[in-house]
């Protein structure tokens, strides 16, 4: 390919659209890069999914080509995961924790975001950023003192320790997220309701909340996925397998000394990770908007 910079604008128009990358080196480079990065991102998951359906005799023979099925694929590993391990317990615990965390988060975050956007004119935005930065206080700095606190309130080795602690990261994150939804809110409808004689709380209930449903849904999704993502606190607080979450249970109990367990281990990881990714992806734009800290005007 010749030096693309030498192309005159006229030639470029002949070839097609005015894409900047095309101007550099054509679609070939663009597609190669896109495919390379996509494969890089998907690599461990592709490897997981490929492994799940392999038989033992296929998997544990170093001479076998690991990228194909030398034996016919099998579903038996999923069966093992579901019926012969504690995985169903981990799933149940995680879902219970996630639902409770979502409820606590929504109850606390909706009033907080409303207050910051609507009732505290100038300092609301700064306070909002401060609250968001709390999200960046890492679990690895807090997990040791929180282990002490959790023990102190009698929740050591209980899944409810996580119900108590997880809102410490969902609240800051989701408050900021919801503030983003409220900034462009049609406040006239609330004012109109108050002019019509509703009290403020009635007006919030009748006019603000219904319009805010997409925002609240986003809060639900993110507090749910952040709960599924969490690993550090779950690792520190809980030791008995009856109380473990997926992320910790899979790591601590499904990795066995003997090798004959990789398929079910990969199944556990893939079965949880990929649905989470799909849901997360649907709401990704909201997530990014929060992370630009208002430095980008959308």
């Amino acid at each position: 390919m010749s030096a693309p910079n030498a192309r005159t604008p006229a030639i470029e128009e002949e070839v097609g659209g005015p894409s900047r990358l095309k101007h550099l080196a054509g679609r070939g480079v663009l597609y190669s890069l896109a495919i390379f990065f996509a494969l890089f991102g998907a690599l461990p998951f592709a490897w997981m999914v490929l492994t799940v359906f392999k038989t033992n005799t296929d998997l544990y023979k170093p001479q076998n080509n690991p990228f194909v099925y030398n034996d016919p694929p099998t579903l038996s590993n999923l069966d093992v995961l579901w019926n012969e391990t504690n995985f169903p317990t981990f799933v149940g615990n995680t879902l219970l924790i996630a639902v409770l965390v979502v409820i606590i988060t929504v109850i606390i975050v909706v009033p907080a975001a409303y207050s910051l956007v609507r009732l505290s004119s100038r300092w609301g935005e700064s306070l909002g950023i401060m609250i968001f930065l709390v999200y960046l206080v890492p679990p690895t700095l807090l997990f040791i003192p929180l282990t002490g606190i959790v023990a102190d309130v009698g929740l050591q080795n209980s899944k409810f320790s996580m119900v108590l602690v997880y809102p410490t990261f969902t609240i800051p994150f989701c408050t900021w997220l919801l503030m983003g939804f409220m900034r462009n809110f049609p406040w006239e409808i609330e004012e109109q309701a108050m002019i019509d004689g509703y009290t403020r709380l009635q007006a919030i209930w009748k006019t603000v909340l219904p319009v805010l449903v997409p925002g609240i849904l986003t809060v639900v999704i993110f507090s749910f996925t952040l709960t599924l993502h969490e690993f550090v606190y779950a690792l520190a607080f809980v030791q008995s397998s009856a109380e473990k979450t997926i992320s910790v249970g899979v790591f601590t109990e499904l990795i066995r000394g003997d090798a004959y367990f990789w398929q079910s281990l990969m199944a556990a990881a893939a079965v949880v990770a990929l649905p989470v990714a799909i849901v997360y992806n649907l709401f990704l734009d909201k997530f990014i908007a929060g992370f630009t800290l208002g430095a980008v005007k959308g």
Partner: protein
Amino acid sequence: MSVSTATVVPVQKEKMERYVLENERVLGPLLLLPAVFYIFALVGLPLVLAVLYAFSTASAGNPRIESPNDFVGLRNFRAVLDDGVFLKALRNTIFFTLASQAIVIVLANILALVLSADFHGKRLVRFLIMLPWTTPIALSVLGWFWLFDSVYSPIDWLMREVGLLGPGTTFGPARNMYWLGETALAQGAVLLVHVWRTLPLATVILLAGLTAIPKDINDAADIDGAGFWRQLFYIRLPLLLPILAIATLFSMVFTFTDLTVSLVLTRGGPVNDTQVLSSWAYFKGIQGGNLAQGAAVALFMLPVLIAIAIVMLRLARRGGQD
């Protein structure tokens, strides 16, 4: 226009409490109170405890600090510095953070440019590229763990097939690389996973900045005949600098404080060569039950985090004023 006039609510029934709740100066703080309380009780207090623990005798068996006798001055720090692993962990933490972020900055700029262009299958590509960020890290690292397996690694198989590994070859005579068993390889593996993990985050933040650059600036540069590299270094990067800084700071925080990659992939090994501050704090404080020494190790993360938070607040404020 107003539909709701039909449902006027009688005002006279308002009680005193209602009236108080109508006052914005009362209602505002009241609605904010639960969130602030939660954050103070379970982030603020532990943050203070994180410092106090480091100077105390707190242990898993007895986490309370009740009397001045429970404070032991710098004893924990002395013990932590003496065992030799701490300095290794500190060095590794800094190395993993700086090296991975240097790579991420370069790759994220390239990837953001790719994703800002239009092409077929872009939604799928974006989904796949985002996977490292959207999936739970403790689970995805298990995939890497299996990819780097000491016997069944597919990388080893490929190397054997092309004659790089095995008896009489460049990397032979061993038939496996032992990716997670050799110091340099294990460190490389941890570094790779950190890059893999934070690249999507940096990319999408950068992409948000890229799409916010007014189109006429690019058009004007095109008309003036500025080439791709000129536009990149003289227009795009300077305009992107604040958002690039934010992207880097975020992924720095996540890498600097990460426990999961080192723990799940290598458990800090071989011989603590991939140990980082957070994993060492975990082994000391939680597994070893010595909360005080674990807290002392983790405390070394705090100055860096405070510095990053200050820079971020400045950036956010500047962004708000523009």
